[in-house]
């Protein structure tokens, strides 16, 4: 069980939080998702997983949802 934090940009409101949460939740291996929203800035995405999360799959999922993962 580990938690990894990622920066995400493009989020403006609670609706975005839900969209990104869902996208991240669907990535294999993820067991928990929460987001600290910074509207119009860089929000923090906390991802819990049993083993290290697949960062590439996560980035693709966030991108497909219309937001951007910060490296």
């Amino acid at each position, binding site marked *: 069980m580990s938690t990894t934090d990622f920066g995400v940009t493009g989020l*403006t*409101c*609670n*609706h975005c*939080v*839900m*969209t990104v*949460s*869902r996208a991240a*939740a*669907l990535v*294999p291996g*993820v*067991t*928990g*998702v*929460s*987001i600290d*929203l910074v509207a119009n800035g860089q929000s923090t995405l906390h991802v*819990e997983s049993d083993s290290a999360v697949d960062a590439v799959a996560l980035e693709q999922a966030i991108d497909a949802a219309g937001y951007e993962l910060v490296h």
Partner: protein
Amino acid sequence: MATTHVDLALEGMTCATCAGRIEGALATVPGVTATVNFATERASVDVDGETDSSALISAVVKVGYGARVIDRDVRDTEPPVDPVLTARVALSLVLTVPVLLVSMIPALQFDGYQWVAAALATPVVSWAAWPFHRAAIRNARHGATTMDTLVSLGVIVAYAWSVYALLFTMAGTIGMRMEMPIFGYAPDALYFESAAAVTAFVLLGRWLEARSKRSAKQSLTALLNTAAQQAILLVDGREVSVPAGAIHTGDQFVVLPGAIVPTDGRIIDGQSAIDASAVTGESVPVTVGVGSPLIGGTVNAGGRLVVEATAVGSATQLARLTRMVEEAQAGKAPVQKLVDRISAVFVPLVIVLAVVGGVAWFALTADATRAVSIAVATLVVACPCALGLATPMALLVGSGRGARSGIIIRGTDVLESTRRVTTIIVDKTGTLTSGQPTVAGVAGDGMSDDRVVADLASVEMGTNHPLARAVVANATSRGVMGEVARDVTVEPGRGVSGIVGSTTVRAGSLDWFTETSTTIPTGLADTAKDWASAGMSIVALAHGDRVVGLVAVRDVTKPSAVEAVKALSALGIHTIMASGDSPEVVARVAEETEIDEAYGSMSPADKRDLVVRLQRQGEVVAMVGDGINDAAALAQADLGIAMGHGTDVAIETSDIVLVSMDLRRVADSIRLSRATLGTIRGNLVWAFGYNALAIPIALAGIMGPAVAGLAMALSSVFVVLNSARLTRFRMS
């Protein structure tokens, strides 16, 4: 283009017209559609495309109101009372007391005291009294006069005249003492104490009122917060914890024991009991199993459930109820305050009298100073100090008396509504009945009553269903508790089965036995039909594939309910019952309580519609309820009364809260409200009365400064004493 949703908290709205103005202002911003709720002081705004929320705020500010963005995820904690108002009250009290003392007690007057009084009164009449001046100007634009106009005018005239007197008459001379003759022409009278005291007293009244009303605004936030914040989403059999809003219709999610159901759904795996008390106010958990629908916001009191989402976001029942409450509150016309209604007549009359008096004196004596001083004296003496205390004092004492008996009255508007109530609607559950069903009849087919009850109790012992508990309680009181059945299984919504000795014993609804082709002897079937039509619930007992006994269970009408209905009728109020229960059960309770009208199978929307229909017929409707399902009707009703352990939302949307479940308190609360309103009217009559009596003296040109002081003191003392009488109000 993406649509975003913004909620704004609005400030400065005084009437429904303001709401319309703000709506219009927001609509001028490109891509914006907005609705403004006057009652909750909120604007709900949908923005198409790239519009910054600051553009919305500036649009609102431009038409003269205040706005700020509300973050829906954060509980909107309003400060207890506007801190600026608190500061104004504190400052005016601190400065007014010395002014009063030094002006009214000649022994305390020192050289130059009048200049000190002027200095102390200045911040009071300017900064502290600013809300009155601002409102008076706003009213003047519409040609209206309210209590604010009276206060503002009285304060300004008293202060301006006193400053003039200080600068241009003998009054400003150092060493001058104010004499206190009751009658006699005093061209150099100073009214600094009147100006300051009126401001301080009326502000204090406002502050007391604001404090008692503050929580009303948080009702809708409370409703939204009933929903769970977190949920466990099932993705290919994997559990992922996500924010509740991430669930879509058709998703599967897990609800752990003790967790809040995150959204509406249907159970696809697991069995449990659901505690819906947060939503419906019903205290008894309901048994659920595969196929049972779940409402978001209820609590899983039993086992782990896997649920498929059937509705999310604004489509959930909770969201629909929220909207209904919002609409109902928005449609509720604010009651015009009694003081304002009196002021609307009193103020113009006083102004006319002052002007006519001044002109008449000038015509008679050609003495301009004298004419103006008489007009001023008239205006000053007419402005009653006790006006500010008349309402809050009575309310404070009345609500204090109510609180001691578990009646919480929220605000003055409520009192006005209770005066006019013609019809009262009560929800049956928990208000008219005990909420604890008991066994009312037993029938066996070749079996003793004791045996029927004993066998039912054996299988039902472990279940938490209210009907089962009634049967077990009956078995205990008969002393026939038998062995506990083996291999007990629960069929949600149908019944239980188990093995007693070597027999398969089932307990459940007759429908279940009909479905499973169990033989029902005609004798028992006839008895069941009679009982059902008498409004009783039936638990049937089967041995193997044959029904062998029946038990009738009913919710007992409270003895106090009959008295309560009588008491309400005695107040001339038409009584109606509106319940979600079956029409037969409702009809029985209606008959036992002698209630005037009764409706069964009522949904939350039906209840609200009933209120609306009655209101259209000209009835003034009070609604008694306890759950979120009653919240819309409570808010729609002219007077909402929440009972007992009611849900937060029911309490927040109601006008009166009753701590006990005793319906007699409803009649008491209406009587107490009416008594409080009567006291307020008495207070106002005397507050205005004593000062009005002084008007002829002022017009006659013989008003000594003592008269203004005397009128102020007498009316204030009367208001306090008259309000204190409410402590002796008797409950039934």
